[in-house]
């Protein structure tokens, strides 16, 4: 009903490599609220397998809130609500009877600031999520998983000789890659990155970006970013959010050169935000 007042999203598809791959996730008319604040308005988006989707937009546009609805983290905040459908491999994660805790085990998430657990070693941090899988009865070779996750996050060579040391001894950039390793150890099919390089220096940022680019070959990634160059470098498709609405979803190569919406153009050319 609210959707009639929302302007149609300018969308083109099939014009970036991999766009017609099957959808890993499909979001249908999703709304998110904090109390009476309507933070995300009627967003629908398709996330094809092995694609990096970037979400850009000014502060407060709802992009982080939207990301947090994709693994049911949004509802951990008091008064937060969601309506709509989010299909992960065809199954609605908001369907009645779905346990949000088990959804989060299948969708990895990395935050703006590194969140290494301070009382745990490097190995302990990477294995932190595995303990819940083991408690649920899965048989897991922890050492093998830890090593593989660290290799995938390009951290193995730097930490292999000090796995038992505190994770706080690592630099900020290394800690962030450790958090990515911790998420990857769960072997998620979808990884959500919420401004993962906002607190990092340029060299660490480049390493994380390279990593995201690599990961695309194995999994599906959604990255929220303030940095438009970053979106251009790592993503296949880009969504522009403004005031809780998705204004435009286009192949990344086009959104920065030939945006279809005037507001997108104003944002990507730096006229506001």
């Amino acid at each position, binding site marked *: 009903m609210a959707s009639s007042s929302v302007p149609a999203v300018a969308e083109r598809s099939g014009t970036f490599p991999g766009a017609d791959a099957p959808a890993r996730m499909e979001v249908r008319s999703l709304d998110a609220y904090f109390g009476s604040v309507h933070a995300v308005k009627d967003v629908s988006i398709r996330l094809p397998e092995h694609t990096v989707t970037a979400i850009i937009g000014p502060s407060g546009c709802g992009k982080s809130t939207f990301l947090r609805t994709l*693994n049911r*983290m949004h509802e*951990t905040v008091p008064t937060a609500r969601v309506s709509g459908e989010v299909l992960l491999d065809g199954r609605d994660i908001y369907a009645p009877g779905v346990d949000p*805790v*088990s959804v*989060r*085990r299948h969708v*990895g*998430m990395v*935050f703006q*600031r590194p*969140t290494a*657990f*301070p*009382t745990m070693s490097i190995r302990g941090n990477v294995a*932190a*999520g595995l*303990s*819940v899988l083991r408690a649920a009865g899965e048989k897991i070779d922890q050492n093998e998983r830890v090593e593989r996750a660290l290799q995938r996050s390009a951290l193995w060579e730097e930490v292999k000789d000090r796995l038992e040391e*505190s994770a*706080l001894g690592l630099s900020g950039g290394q800690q962030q890659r450790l*958090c990515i390793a*911790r*998420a990857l150890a*769960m072997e998620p099919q979808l990884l959500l990155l919420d401004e993962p390089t906002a607190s990092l220096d340029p060299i660490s940022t480049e390493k994380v970006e390279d990593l995201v680019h690599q990961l695309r070959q194995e999994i599906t990634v959604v990255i929220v970013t303030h940095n438009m160059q970053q979106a251009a470098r790592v993503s296949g498709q880009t969504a522009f959010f403004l005031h809780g609405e998705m204004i435009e979803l286009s192949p990344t190569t086009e959104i920065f050169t030939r945006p279809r919406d005037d507001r997108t153009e104003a944002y990507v050319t730096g006229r506001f935000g």
Partner: protein
Amino acid sequence: MTAFRASRRRWAINTFMTGLMWAAAAAATVPLLLILFNLLKEGITSLNWAFFTHLPAPPGQEGGGAANAIVGTVLLVGGASVFGLPIGIGAGIYLAENGRAPLAVFVRFLADVLNGLPSIVMGIFAWEVIVVPMHHFSALSGAFALGAMMIPTVTRTTEEMVRVVPSTLREAALALGYTRWRTSLRIVLPTAMAGIITGALVALARIAGETAPLLFTAFGNNFWSLSINKPVAALPLQIFNYATGPYDDWHQQAWAASLVLIALVLLISLLARFVTRSGFSRGVE
């Protein structure tokens, strides 16, 4: 060039105020140092090996010790921890995790009120609840009174310590598929642990010297007793009895007991500082 010179008036006020602060700091520390000095002077001469190994001498006889009181104090403080720590820490975690719930607001207010409750009232409470139904004094009732005194302090320090754990850590754990319970137990508690232990030790140091709650609960005992069901000796009670007694030898014993009690409290406080320094900085960056 007068532009960079402080005015005479500002210089005068600054000097005066600095002096005032020094005086206030001295007024706060000097009495404490005098007490410690006097205690050391009087206590050290009365302190001997027998004090740590012997039972109190019968009235009128010289010598004896306070071995049973030292052991009794350890027993009472240990028993108080069994009562006070789980309840205090549990309530503190509840307050930190559910800060704005009506029950939490009420519990927090109650903890603050309890914190200011005169300790003798806590003694009466323990007497009423445990001594009266059992028809006799006991170590159990003493430990209960002291434990109840610990609860508000431990609750509030635990709440503070859990609260300073960054919420981003909690979110990271939830995003990995941790339940709230597991997040509290595996991530938040270990991170806050050093601070919680420090708070617990400070509370222990505080109750170790309490006398009033023990007067009509633990009651005191001139003989060995390790039973929680019988009256038990305690250093503060021993000090009270000896200091108000008629014999010089008792007064010397009271000094010695005071010194040992202060040393015990100091030791616990030092331990608290040590824990804070070693673990806490690691816990919360």
